[in-house]
C-alpha cells in the first residue's frame, strides 16, 4: 500500500516537473566572456591586435582569443583607444550622470576627465562617446549643456577638451536641434574637422531621424554626408581614412551595416554589407582587413561579435582630388580638398564574403562602442 502511494505521489510530482521542464527558452542567460574559450585556430583568436569591448558594464580586453576583465564594479561603457594604444577613454555611467575616465591598458584609472555629478540632480550631466584626436592630445565627446531657460530640452552637443586639461577648457563644436537627442558619436578627422551623428526632426515622415554630418571647424556650417531618409548613424572611419562604415535603418527596425568611400569631404555610394539584422557598432580592423559589429542572429537574441572580411578599397579616382592635395590616408594626416567632390557613381562593388560569427551566448552591450588597436 505504501509503495502504491509512493508511485502515485511520484506520478503527480513527475507530471508537474515534466510540464515545467517544457517552458519556452525565452530568457537564456548570457555567459561572461571569461567563460568563453576559443581554440588557437578559431576565428576569434585570429583577430589581429587588441580589442576592447563591454558586456553588462564590464570592460573586457580581447587578445589572442582570450577575454580579460579590465574594469568592473561599476557600469563602464564606450571605450576608445589612444592612437598610441597605451591608454583608453572610457565612460563610467552612474544612475543619473556619466563621466569620462582615462585608464591605462591594464584597466587602472589614470584620471577622471569630467565631473558631472551635482547635488541638484537636474544639474547633472551626461558625457558619452569619447574619442581621441589623431594626436591623442584632445578628447571629443557628447555632452548635455543645460538650457537655463528650458530644463526640459536635454540635448547632446559635440565638445572638445584637452585629455590632460579640465572641462573649463572644453569647446563646443556643434549646435544640436532641440528636443531630438542632439549630436553624438564624434570622429575627429584632424584638420578636416569632425564627423558625427546628428538627430533631426523630419517633417516628411514625422519622425526623428539620424544623419551623419561633417563640420570642418568650430562655428563652421555643418553639412550632411547622408540623407535623412537613410537614417544612418554610428560612423566608423577605416584606418586608411578612405572608407566609412555606418549603421542605416531607413527608419525601420532593421539596422544594416553599410560602407561607403570617403574622400575627406563627401561619401560615395553606400554598399549594404549586412542587412536585415539589428546590427550595431561597426568597427574597423586596425589592419583594414574588415570590420567587426554586434548583432543577434535574426531580430532577437544575444548581441554577438561578428567579423565581416572586406577587400581593400579600389584606388582613388584621379579626378576626385586635386593634384596638390593627396587623398587622405589617415584621418590625422589628411588635408582638406580644395573643392568637395560629389558622390560619383561607380560600378557595383563585388559582393563581400559572408560575415563570420565570432562569439556565442555572450550578449555584448550594443550601445557601447568597440575599440580596436594593433
Amino acid at each position, binding site marked *: 500500500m505504501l509503495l502504491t502511494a509512493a508511485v502515485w505521489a511520484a506520478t503527480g510530482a513527475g507530471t508537474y516537473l515534466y*510540464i515545467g521542464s517544457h517552458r*519556452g527558452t525565452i530568457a537564456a542567460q548570457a555567459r561572461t566572456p571569461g567563460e568563453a574559450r576559443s581554440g588557437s585556430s578559431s576565428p576569434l583568436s585570429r583577430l589581429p591586435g587588441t580589442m576592447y569591448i563591454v558586456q553588462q558594464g564590464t570592460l573586457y580586453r580581447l587578445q589572442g582569443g582570450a577575454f580579460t576583465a579590465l574594469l568592473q564594479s561599476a557600469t563602464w561603457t564606450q571605450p576608445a583607444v589612444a592612437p598610441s594604444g597605451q591608454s583608453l577613454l572610457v565612460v563610467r555611467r552612474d544612475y543619473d550622470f556619466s563621466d569620462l575616465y582615462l585608464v591605462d591598458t591594464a584597466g587602472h584609472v589614470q584620471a577622471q576627465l569630467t565631473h558631472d555629478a551635482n547635488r541638484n540632480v537636474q544639474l547633472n550631466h*551626461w558625457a558619452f562617446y569619447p574619442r581621441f584626436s589623431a594626436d591623442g592630445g584632445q578628447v571629443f565627446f557628447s555632452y548635455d549643456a543645460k538650457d537655463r531657460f528650458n530644463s*526640459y530640452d536635454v540635448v*547632446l552637443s559635440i565638445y572638445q577638451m584637452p585629455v590632460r586639461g579640465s572641462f573649463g577648457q572644453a569647446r563646443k563644436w556643434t549646435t544640436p536641434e532641440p528636443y531630438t*537627442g542632439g549630436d553624438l558619436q564624434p570622429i575627429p578627422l584632424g584638420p578636416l574637422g569632425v564627423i558625427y551623428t546628428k538627430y533631426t526632426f523630419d517633417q516628411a515622415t514625422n519622425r526623428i531621424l539620424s544623419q551623419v554630418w561633417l563640420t570642418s571647424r568650430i562655428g563652421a556650417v555643418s553639412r550632411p554626408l547622408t540623407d535623412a531618409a537613410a537614417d544612418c548613424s554610428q560612423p566608423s572611419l577605416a584606418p586608411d581614412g578612405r572608407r566609412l562604415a555606418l*549603421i542605416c535603418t531607413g527608419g525601420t527596425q532593421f539596422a544594416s551595416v553599410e560602407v561607403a568611400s570617403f574622400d575627406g569631404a563627401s561619401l560615395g555610394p553606400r554598399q549594404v554589407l549586412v542587412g536585415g539584422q*539589428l546590427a550595431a557598432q561597426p568597427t574597423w580592423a586596425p589592419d583594414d582587413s574588415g570590420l567587426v559589429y*554586434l548583432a543577434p542572429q535574426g531580430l532577437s537574441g544575444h548581441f554577438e561579435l561578428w567579423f565581416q572580411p572586406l577587400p581593400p578599397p579600389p584606388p582613388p579616382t584621379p579626378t576626385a582630388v586635386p593634384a596638390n592635395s593627396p587623398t587622405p590616408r589617415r584621418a590625422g594626416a589628411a588635408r582638406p580638398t580644395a573643392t568637395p567632390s560629389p558622390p560619383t557613381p561607380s560600378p557595383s562593388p563585388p559582393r563581400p564574403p559572408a560575415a563570420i560569427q565570432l562569439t556565442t551566448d555572450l550578449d555584448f552591450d550594443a550601445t557601447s562602442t568597440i575599440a580596436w588597436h594593433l
Partner: protein
Amino acid sequence: MGWRSALAVFLIGILVSGLCGILAYFLPVVAAAYAQTGQQARSGRAGPAPLPAAPTPASAIRGAAFTVLLMGSDDDSKFPSDAVLTQSMILVRVDPAARHVTMLSIPRDLWVPFAGGGTAKIDAAYALGGATRAIATVEHDFGIRVDEYVWVGLKGLIKLIDYLGGVDLTTANPVLDDFYPADVESTDPYAYKRVAVLPGPQHMDGLHALEYVRSRHDDIQEDFGRSQRQQQVLLALRTKVRNVNPSDLPAIVATFNAEFKTSFNLLDLGRLRSLLALASQITDPSQVEQLILTGDYTSSSVVDGQDVLLPNWNTILPLVQKNFT
C-alpha cells in the same frame, strides 16, 4: 478485492495523480483566469453608459478579424487603486486571415466626450470607470467595436519584459529626460530622475524599456513620439512571445500579480495557442501597420487650463473606419 480491481484502482490513482500534477502546475493560471481574465470587454453589457446591444463579438469567431484595446497605466500611489490614468491606449486590429495587424495609438491628451457624460482627456476614462468606461468611450467616439481589452500596470510591463528575457529593438533617437518619474524605484510618487536611453540596436530589460516608452519631456513630438516608441516595444515583445508556450503561463501569471487584466480567457488554451501561432506568422514588417494621430488628425489647445489635443473627427473617423471595421 481481486487483482483486477486492485489494478484498476492503481491505474485510476496514476491518472488522478497525473491530473493533480497538471492542476497544481496550472493552479496559478486558473486562479488568475478567474480573478483577472475573461472579464467583460463589451461596453454594451455593463458600465455607466450602456450602448445599444451589439451583435455577437467578431472575436468569438475564430479566424475573423477582431479589435483589442491595449491600455497601460501608471500604477503609482498618486492614485487610488484601480483609478489610474492610462498612459497608453493602443487600438490593435488583428486580421488572422490576412495575417495583418494595424495599431493606432490614441493620444492620452485627446479631449473627447465620455460615454456616460462629460468631456475630458481620454486618459481619465479608465480612472473614472475602469475598462468598461474606457472601452465605451473609445467605441462611442471612434465608432468602432472593441472586442477584447488588455490592461497592464507599468510595473507589470517591467516584470513581463524581464520574464521574457528583455526585448531587442532599434531605438530611433536618444531619449533624454531630466524629469522622468522615479515612482518605480522610489516610495515618493512625485520623485524624478534623469534617464538617457542611447540610440541604436540594443537589448533592454524591463526597467529600461519602460523608461523608453514612458519618457516624453524631451521629445519634439511629445506624446506622439512616445506613442511610436510604445508601438515599437510592443512589436519587439511580439518577437519574444513567439517563444512562449502554455508551460510558461503560470510563471507569467505570477510575474503580473495584480498588474494585468484582460477580457481574454486564459483558460481558453486553444484560442491562446492560435494567437501565439498567429504572432509567429507575422514576421514581415509589411504585415504590421502603425498609425499615429499627428498632423491633420489633431491640434494642440488649452482647455480649462490643461494642455490638450483636440480631435479632428473629419479626418480621424475615415481613418478608423477604414482600418478598424
